[in-house]
């Protein structure tokens, strides 16, 4: 079964077309990343899937239901990590997590979630006293407290230091192992590469490429760059057969500074969104 099915999704704000016919399938149990520059339609698309916005056209099914009409039972199976909330400043972390646990039919344990999100040392602290990264962890805690089948993570690691990001990735992997479907939007390509089973790149309201982090945009078949230096100087060759090129080099004699560079996800991404002319 598919957790998310989107066909021909359209959304316009006045004369501005934010989403211009998006097709998207996210399978149950999958970690799916949606990449795209600001203004590409990422947030509009996810907010339609979350039931926050109405669409102007197209078919949408999230956990088998239309978000525009789905009710409380449907919401109980979703977890949503918002991007910019600053609420509950006067409550402690534990009070806030406990409050939200009470809104769900089958929540995780309050202390379990606080521990999972690395907030145990801050459980009694007012939310207003937390750093940006800690505040973000509270958002994540409130997103997973209801034991969601489908979790939306909207740029979840903005403001995290590198160590906190790695720990957060481990948490996402643990949730995925448990069978949670995760739709992740992110600006960090390494994050998408580390976490996503599949990803899609959205630009100007359309999906321009879709695949695994290693195949998207023809990454697996794109020419690699082989560089080396020998007696006649520095050389650079772009080839779809880097292994063959290196084998040939090995027969010809001593070379130094040999490098084989496959296009990175960032190369592919920048190409796809037209940032590289």
């Amino acid at each position: 079964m598919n957790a998310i099915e989107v066909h021909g999704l359209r959304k316009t704000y006045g004369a501005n077309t934010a989403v211009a016919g998006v097709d998207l399938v996210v399978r149950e149990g999958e970690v799916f990343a949606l990449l795209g520059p600001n203004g590409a339609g990422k947030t509009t698309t996810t907010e339609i899937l979350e039931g926050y916005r109405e669409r102007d056209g197209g078919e949408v099914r999230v956990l088998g239901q239309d978000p525009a009409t789905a009710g409380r039972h449907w919401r109980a199976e979703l977890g949503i990590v918002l991007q910019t909330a600053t609420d509950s400043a006067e409550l402690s972390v534990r009070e806030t997590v406990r409050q939200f646990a009470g809104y769900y039919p089958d929540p995780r344990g309050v202390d379990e979630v606080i521990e999972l999100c690395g907030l145990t040392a801050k459980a009694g602290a007012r939310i207003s006293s937390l750093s940006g990264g800690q505040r973000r962890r509270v958002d994540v805690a409130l997103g997973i407290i209801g034991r969601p089948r489908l979790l939306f993570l909207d740029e979840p690691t903005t403001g995290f230091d590198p160590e906190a990001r790695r720990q957060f990735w481990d948490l996402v992997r643990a949730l995925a192992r448990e069978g949670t479907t995760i739709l992740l939007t992110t600006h960090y390509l390494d994050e998408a590469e580390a976490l996503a089973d599949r990803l899609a790149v959205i630009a100007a309201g359309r999906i321009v490429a879709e695949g695994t982090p290693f195949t998207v945009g023809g990454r697996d078949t794109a020419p690699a760059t082989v560089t080396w230096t020998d007696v006649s100087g520095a050389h650079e060759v772009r080839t779809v057969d880097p292994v063959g090129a290196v084998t040939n080099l090995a027969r010809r004699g001593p070379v130094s500074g040999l490098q084989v560079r496959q296009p990175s996800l960032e190369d592919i991404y920048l190409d796809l969104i037209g940032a590289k002319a």
Partner: protein
Amino acid sequence: MTTGTLPRRTTTARPPLPSTLRSGVLRGGAELRMFFRSKEAVLFTFSFPAIILLLLGSINSGEATEGVPMSRVLTASMIAYGILSTAFINIGVGIAADREDGSLKRLRGTPVTAGAYFTGKVILVAVATVAEVAVLLAVGVLAFDLDLPTEPGKWLTFAWVLALSVIACTLLGIAASALTRSARSAGAVLNVPVLALQFISGVFVYVGSLPKAMVDVAAFFPVRWMAQSFRAVFLPDSMAAGEVAGTWQLGTAALVLGAWCVVGTVLCLLTFRWTDRRAG
């Protein structure tokens, strides 16, 4: 964050969703904690009416009429201010803030119903208003020798006037929250009608000294009837002669306040929204 494996979810049917009432009570507890821990709320929303009463009561040390000191009249009238503050302003600013800081959006993403959210607000208003009225009466009794009525009939009047006033002010506060652009401006915007109506409704000044045109306009709004009815509870009946009609007009007060409850309900249903459309 730890890297341990999470316990597997059970595949059996899930328990039923928490009821609107249960979620609402939970939300109410959170609302109360947030309110009474917020310096701004405690100082400006909760303490302000009592401070104004202390100041105005001390300045107006003379008699209003009939040997009743003005400070005592002010105490009775300013219960209306207390309710305006803890119901109308508190709710209007609170919902604008909830919309702005993401509270409403976050709740919208959970199984919480609009009914549970408003139940939480009602619990906040009820507790804050009872505490507010208690503080105002304490100021009246301790500073201005207010005698609390002993007849059960007066307390019965007090109960229904308080209930109708709180309901009307809360509903109008919810409706007014839709008009405000931000939490910051909401406080200023909502205080305009609150202060203006109190002047023309005989809360800050003795009603007998107001021009007729003013009290005629004030008769359309709830504040005059709230203040007048609280005077009926806490002042001797001989004071009724100083009112606009020469009587307490409790029947009219009930009708006007009841009508504003209906108007408030309609406005709420027409204007409430979970998120700020302008935020895009």
